[in-house]
């Protein structure tokens, strides 16, 4: 075995926010990876001493790509603090807003962040290269433009119900600030119909139901239409089904709560075995983080940056662990934990391909669910319940952002926020090493990635990193 060389990879673009990865490479393979979130802003400290309702204005601004997810988590945490539930129709509108954002993020990820790497000259000898260039060249590809236009039109739903995107203040613990009319409902229906046409014509090349009905990985090889087929043929050629293999441990907080429970179930999946998730088992460990204090559950946690950036740490990101174990979170985890048979099989594969297909599966399922949700909204009912917050107490808001599990833990004393802790999806996925030296999910998935001779920013590493759809601004917040 030859000695390892070190590569410092960054700035890492087409991820949301800034990311630096240190790679130890030997014999053309990554031997170890260290993920650094190089930006600290201190939102948890900013929130201290504010009125609890101000969290609804401040937390969405943690992240411009999952802003509504942050709103939802804050609204849920405040509702939990007040021990109330929102007006049922208001909860539906909030959920629709949240779904639009998540769907929009999935679409952006596939078209603007992930696929453009296949149009790189390094692949010019591959049979699919010309199509990848036409469709997915960064800033120019025909698929990118069409996706951007489809997303912009879909976002009209947020304009109508939430005023603007990102950073709406429409979502409240008691419901939403705007009561839609029957006219609004038909307009939104038209926007959703247009989005379905786009998905079926361009992304899947077939009715969404045909994709959602797949149950086995083998059936993917028969998929011959849409940009999905292009991705699958690239994946076969580059063996993306054996690249970026994760540790097989997944969690989901459960997405889109209904009175009957979340639409996509809450739970964990460990080596193919489903289980219950108890948030009390979460601990944020900090030995590899530039943080002071102690490992703690987020309800007891604190954020004190180490201004000296000590030598034996390497990231501003904490390392959340559930029952002491790192977990991967995201669309693949969510769909597998919800029990979709194709997703369950893909979760077992745990590859770059699995993450990308898992996301597209959720895109298709979510469109169907948005249509169902809209149809169920009764515009004659109230959309808001007035909520009075207690002067003392605690609350937790657990939701699923596009990229996975997002939790807010709030504590209020004398009517003001005394503690606010946030664990974002990429905090889980891109966490640094924990107390036992166990790497985070991305760090583990990068081990074994191939590095071609002369590559200073290995393309296989880029595929693996982007397959997680990282949101670095959320990670540290």
């Amino acid at each position, binding site marked *: 075995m030859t000695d390892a060389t070190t590569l*410092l*990879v*960054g*700035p*890492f*673009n*087409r991820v949301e*926010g*800034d990311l*630096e990865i240190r790679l130890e490479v030997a014999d053309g393979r990554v031997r170890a990876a260290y993920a*650094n979130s*190089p*930006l*600290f*802003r*201190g939102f948890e400290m*900013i*929130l201290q001493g504010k*009125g609890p*309702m*101000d969290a*609804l*204005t*401040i937390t969405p*601004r*943690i*992240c*411009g*790509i999952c*802003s509504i997810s942050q709103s939802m988590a804050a609204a849920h945490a405040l509702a939990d603090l007040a021990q109330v539930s929102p007006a049922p129709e208001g909860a539906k509108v909030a959920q629709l807003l949240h779904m639009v954002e998540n769907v929009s993020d999935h679409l*952006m990820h596939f078209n*603007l*962040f992930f696929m*453009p790497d296949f*149009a790189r000259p390094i692949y010019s000898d591959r049979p699919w290269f010309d199509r990848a260039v036409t469709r997915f060249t*960064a*800033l120019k590809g025909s698929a990118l*433009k069409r996706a*951007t236009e489809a*997303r*912009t039109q879909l976002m*009209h739903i*947020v*304009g109508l119900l939430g*005023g*603007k*995107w*990102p*950073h*709406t*203040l429409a979502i409240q613990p008691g419901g*939403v*600030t*705007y*009561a839609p009319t029957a006219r609004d409902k038909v307009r939104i229906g038209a926007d959703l119909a247009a989005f379905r046409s786009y998905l079926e014509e361009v992304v899947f090349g077939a009715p969404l139901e045909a994709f959602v009905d797949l149950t086995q990985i083998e059936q993917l090889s028969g998929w011959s239409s849409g940009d999905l087929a292009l991705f699958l043929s690239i994946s076969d050629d580059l063996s993306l089904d054996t690249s970026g293999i994760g540790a097989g441990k997944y969690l989901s907080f459960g997405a889109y709560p209904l009175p009957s429970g979340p639409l996509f179930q809450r739970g964990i999946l460990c080596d193919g075995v489903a289980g219950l998730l108890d948030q009390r088992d979460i601990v944020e460990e900090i030995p590899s983080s530039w943080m002071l204090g102690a490992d703690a559950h987020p309800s007891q946690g604190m954020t004190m940056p180490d201004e000296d950036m000590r030598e034996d740490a390497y990231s*501003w990101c904490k390392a959340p662990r559930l029952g002491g174990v790192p977990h991967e979170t995201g669309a693949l985890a969510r769909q597998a934990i919800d029990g979709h048979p194709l997703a369950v099989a893909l979760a077992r594969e745990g590859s770059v391909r699995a993450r990308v297909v898992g996301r597209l599966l959720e895109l298709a399922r979510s469109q169907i669910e948005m249509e169902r949700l809209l149809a169920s909204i009764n515009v004659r009912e109230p959309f*808001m319940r*007035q909520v009075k917050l207690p002067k003392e107490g605690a609350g937790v808001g657990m939701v699923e952002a596009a990229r996975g599990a997002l939790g807010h833990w709030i504590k209020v004393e004398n009517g003001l926020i005394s503690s606010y802790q946030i664990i974002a999806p990429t905090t889980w996925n891109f966490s640094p090493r924990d107390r036992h030296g166990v790497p985070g999910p991305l760090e583990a998935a990068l081990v074994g990635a191939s590095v071609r001779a002369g590559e200073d*920013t290995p393309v296989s590493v880029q595929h693996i990193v982007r397959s997680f759809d990282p949101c670095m*601004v959320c990670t540290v917040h």
Partner: protein
Amino acid sequence: MNILWLQSAGCGGCTMSLLCAESPNLFDLFASAGLEFLWHPSLSEASGAEVCRLLEAVESGAQKLDILCVEGSIVHGPKNTGRYHMLAGTGRSMLDWVQSLAPKAEHVIAVGTCATYGGVTSAGDNPADATGLQYDGRHAGAALPASFRARSGLPVINISGCPIHPDWVAETLLLLSQGELGADDLDIYARPRFYTDTLVHHACPKNEFYEYKASAEELSQIGCMMEHLGCIGTQAVGDCNIRLWNGEGSCTRAGYPCINCTAPEFEEPGHGFTQTPKFAGIPVGLPTDMPKAWFMALASLSKRATPARVAKNATSDRIIVPPSVKSRKHD
């Protein structure tokens, strides 16, 4: 003209909002105006070492730079080192990079209220010691000195907003590309006047409620939100209710108050964002360019003159009483 776009300490939401540009989409709009990204962190192909080489080329002058756009505030902490944001792969702080690259650009644009004035990243005790590019809140002189001028002779152009409206950025770039944006076209905080010469109040659908001070008491009620719910649309610059967001939206149209996000220091209003501070029951912070006594006189008069329709609707979550329509005269 080429554009180098850097994302500093912000949420990335201004880029996300910019991608909502429509008629035409952002890519076609830029192509038609001869605008191209030298590099954009969310959109370009280049990653890692390629980007480092590009930044070095701009710094050395080997690569000409027309427009530098910076999104996100500039963090100075800890202890004035800027190390709370090291630009990945470069071993240098974003503070250092921005100070080095700005003088090379023909134009420098701060995109969003974080980049212009510090914004939400500088809220509370400002843990990361964040400022805007050329302003620290209302005060000129921050990561770049008050005297800084880009090669064009203009100061940093401040497109504030949290987030920016996609058209504010697109139209600023179009005006610059045609040489149509000069010093006189910027307001006192260096914002393009084409969107700051109007108020959020203009074309707000709650204007009739405002006329009578028929107020919403709780969020989701459709009355004016100035008296009780913290709305400062009458003081906030922006054309939000004239050009609208994401199709037909705006904050006040969706039933929540304008929090003046285009202004320096909006992140610290000194009270809850959805509360109106009052003195002896009267809101503090009345419209800036109206004599207070006149405002009070008119308000008390108009309150008493409020039509029943307007009063009833103001505290409802939808229109309960429609306007009375004149019936046809009897023959």
